[in-house]
């Protein structure tokens, strides 16, 4: 309709100009009767026709030429001349040329139109929305697809601002900015609102439209409804989030790194261990390297392989079992997912277990008893070196042999179910039986059978007692012989004592009788010497016996209450003759107390100390006996002004038979027994004894004994 109307309009104008030209020419020719008919205005319809009707303009030109000729012919003044025809021809030529040019142009326009239609068709039929927006944000074009998913028709939106379409109004400016800056926009995701104000996710690509001079005039935008994709993505993301949540809560470390070694994810376990390095380049962050680590499995994983390997982190000093697998991302790229399982403890335990196993193997192998493992109470499954030696079989031969095979016939029944009984706790751990070795030798063994916890087996430990039994027998024999010898010794000592003392009896006896006889001074002196020697001899014999008894068996104290001053006086009195002979002075200071002691032994203690002092103190020396009451115990000191004892001898003087001087020039009359008897007796009383001495100045002998004995045993 519009087309037709437009055509008519053109036709009318043309017709009216042609008519106008005709009237004007007629008027000039016939009314004004000009000599020359003016025809310049004829060009107007010719031009119009040429432009509008192209080559058809020739007809208009011909018509006007004819009109011109006719008017000229019939006009009263004008004359038909060559000029008229020339001009007419020019009209036609002009019309033709213009028509030709128009034709050419129209052809081009036609083509253009076709192209435009083609494009319009594309635009219309495109599934993607194609919208043209000018620089002010006003919509200039709006295709069918845009109508479809936005709900607005082209008429509704063309000429209006595009701001209202975006969920975020600023988005319109942002897009315009990017397109202006970059000249294009690619796969830009945004959300628009349709007519119902429902959000539609689109992916938009845009380009800048420029006019011929390169001035931007607008943008063309191609958008695709990707709501479904976005929803899917969101779902995937949600799932990924769930996955991450699972990954976060895992005990194992989880780590995702991109193809480009960028850390995309670390779960809490890993962050705690290594710090948060999400977003960092893994080899830089974890290994301080400028390039990927040589052991990195990224290239392999990127090829789609799943890799499992063990890695020891020096930083955490822990060992991880790494499980690395490709992880396809939404955008189609692949990342590497690594599961870190901390196996340090397991490894350590494995190591320990291995060590322990090895240790036990060594212990088992090198134990000095024969060891074997008995499976199911019957078969020997494992044996050590010592078992090989005991049995005479090689280990290969032993393996699988019955346990009973090593048992002597008479012991078989007993040993048969021994393991089983042991397990039930019905048999003692240790049993003795006769073991048969390869060559048929019988060995007495002690067997310890222990059930192996949690296994149907026992471990048997066999000790070859054959030699031991023999040794035991020998030892018993030796003991018996020694006991006999001991008895012989003590018998001998007793006899020796008796036999030594017996001859003393007449010496002492007759000497005592001789005292009653009338003797010359010389005789008295001789007698005195005899008596002294006899007493000395008796003392030595007594000491020997005492010591033999101390040596042999324990002697017990005959305890009683002893009045100390009385006891010491008695001792001093008995020793006075010796002291007097050497013109020595014995002084004493004794508290008036009674102590619980063995009187005879206490006398022995004092008399040994005092007689020693007398012996080793030169003529005219002094001897002091001092006893201090210290409450719980007494401290006694026998001091002399004697020759003293060299320091190196001091620690040994209480040893039996120890003599400071053993040269032939020593003071005779001592066997080195006195002080050892003192020591033994003081010890028996629960006391201690020691000495202090300075050579040339004298010695001090101390002893401390409790006033009361712990085990009160009143002496006979």
């Amino acid at each position, binding site marked *: 309709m519009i087309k037709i109307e437009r055509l008519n309009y053109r036709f009318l104008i043309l017709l009216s100009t042609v008519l106008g030209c005709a009237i004007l020419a007629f008027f000039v020719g016939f009314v004004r009767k000009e000599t020359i008919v003016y025809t310049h205005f004829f060009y107007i319809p010719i031009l119009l026709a040429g432009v509008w009707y192209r080559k058809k303009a020739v007809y208009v030109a011909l018509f006007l030429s004819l009109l011109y000729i006719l008017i000229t012919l019939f006009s009263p003044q004008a004359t038909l001349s060559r000029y008229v025809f020339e001009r007419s021809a020019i009209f036609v030529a002009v019309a033709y040329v213009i028509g030709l040019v128009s034709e050419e142009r129209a052809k081009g326009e036609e083509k253009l139109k076709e192209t435009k239609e083609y494009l319009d068709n594309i635009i219309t039929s495109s599934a993607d929305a194609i919208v043209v927006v000018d620089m002010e944000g006003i919509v200039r074009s709006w295709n069918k697809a845009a109508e479809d998913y936005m709900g607005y028709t082209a008429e509704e939106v063309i000429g209006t601002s595009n701001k209202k379409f975006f969920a975020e109004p600023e988005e319109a400016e942002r897009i315009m900015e990017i397109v202006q800056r970059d000249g294009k926009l690619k796969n830009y995701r945004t959300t628009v609102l349709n007519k119902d104000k429902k959000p539609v996710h689109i992916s938009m690509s845009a380009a800048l439209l420029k006019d011929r001079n390169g001035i931007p005039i607008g943008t063309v935008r191609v958008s695709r409804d990707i709501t479904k994709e976005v929803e899917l993505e969101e779902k995937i993301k949600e799932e990924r989030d769930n996955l991450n949540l699972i990954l976060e809560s895992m005990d194992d470390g989880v780590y995702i790194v991109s193809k480009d070694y960028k850390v995309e994810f670390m779960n809490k376990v890993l962050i705690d261990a290594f710090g948060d390095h999400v977003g960092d380049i893994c080899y830089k962050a974890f290994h301080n390297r400028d390039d990927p680590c040589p052991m990195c499995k990224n290239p392999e994983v990127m090829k789609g392989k799943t890799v499992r390997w063990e890695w020891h982190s020096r930083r955490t000093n822990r060992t991880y079992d790494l499980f690395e697998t490709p992880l396809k991302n939404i955008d189609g790229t692949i990342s590497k997912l690594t599961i870190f399982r901390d196996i340090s403890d397991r490894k350590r335990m494995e190591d320990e277990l291995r060590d322990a196993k090895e240790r036990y193997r060594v212990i088992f192998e090198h134990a000095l008893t024969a060891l074997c493992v008995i499976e199911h109470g019957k078969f020997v499954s494992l044996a050590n070196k010592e078992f090989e030696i005991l049995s005479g079989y090689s280990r290969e031969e032993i393996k699988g042999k019955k346990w009973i095979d090593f048992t002597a016939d008479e012991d078989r029944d007993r040993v048969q179910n021994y393991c089983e009984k042991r397990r039930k706790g019905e048999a003692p751990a240790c049993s003795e039986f006769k073991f048969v070795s390869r060559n048929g030798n019988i060995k007495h063994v002690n067997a310890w059978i222990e059930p192996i916890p949690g296994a149907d087996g026992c471990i048997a430990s066999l000790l070859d007692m054959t030699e031991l039994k023999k040794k035991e027998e020998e030892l018993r024999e030796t003991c018996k012989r020694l006991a006999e010898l001991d008895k012989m010794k003590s018998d001998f000592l*007793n006899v020796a*004592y*008796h*036999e*030594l*003392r*017996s001859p*003393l*009896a*007449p*010496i*002492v*006896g*007759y*000497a*005592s*009788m001789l005292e*009653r006889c009338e003797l010359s001074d010389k005789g008295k002196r001789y007698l005195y010497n005899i008596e002294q020697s*006899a007493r000395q001899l*008796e003392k030595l014999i*007594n000491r020997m*016996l005492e010591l033999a*008894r101390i040596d042999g068996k324990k002697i017990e104290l005959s305890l009683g209450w002893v009045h100390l001053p009385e006891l010491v006086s008695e001792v001093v009195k008995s020793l006075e003759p010796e002291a007097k002979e050497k013109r020595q002075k014995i002084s004493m200071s004794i508290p008036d107390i009674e102590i619980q002691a063995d009187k005879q032994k206490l006398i022995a203690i004092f008399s040994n100390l005092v007689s020693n002092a007398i012996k080793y103190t030169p003529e005219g020396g002094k001897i002091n006996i001092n006893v201090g009451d210290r409450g719980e115990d007494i401290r006694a000191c026998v001091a002399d002004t004697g020759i003293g004892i060299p320091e190196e001898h001091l620690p040994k003087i209480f040893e039996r038979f120890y003599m400071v001087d053993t040269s032939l020039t020593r003071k005779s009359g001592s066997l080195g027994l006195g002080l050892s008897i003192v020591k033994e007796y003081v010890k028996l009383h629960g006391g201690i004894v020691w000495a202090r001495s300075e050579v040339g100045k004298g010695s001090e002998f101390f002893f401390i004994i409790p006033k009361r004995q712990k085990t009160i045993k009143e002496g006979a």
Partner: protein
Amino acid sequence: MGEKKKRVLIVEDAAYMREMLQEMLHQEERSYEVVGFAVNGKEAVEKYKELKPDIVTMDLVMEEMDGIQAIRGIKKYDPNALIIAITALGMSEYKDAALAAGADEYLWKPFTIKNLFEALERLLRKRGNEGNE
């Protein structure tokens, strides 16, 4: 001391001891009289039965029958017998054994004449006390 001399039987295997004991006792002739000797336990018991002495000095170590047995033998025959054991044996066990067998006194060799008479006096005093009881 009673007016009556104490009759003493000396049991000793060593001749020199027998002689010495006799010598010693004769120093107190008014109180003691050696009535016989025995050289072993068996003879001692026989002699005791035969002589019925007041006091027996008994050596413990003798052939054939030792002193302990002899003490028992005599005491069995006469519980009132007065026996003084005289020995060179050092161990107190022997003293205990002798006393347990019935010896009334104990004297260690070697001894002086004084020791002997002290022991005898103790012995007689003891018997005197017992007599009084």
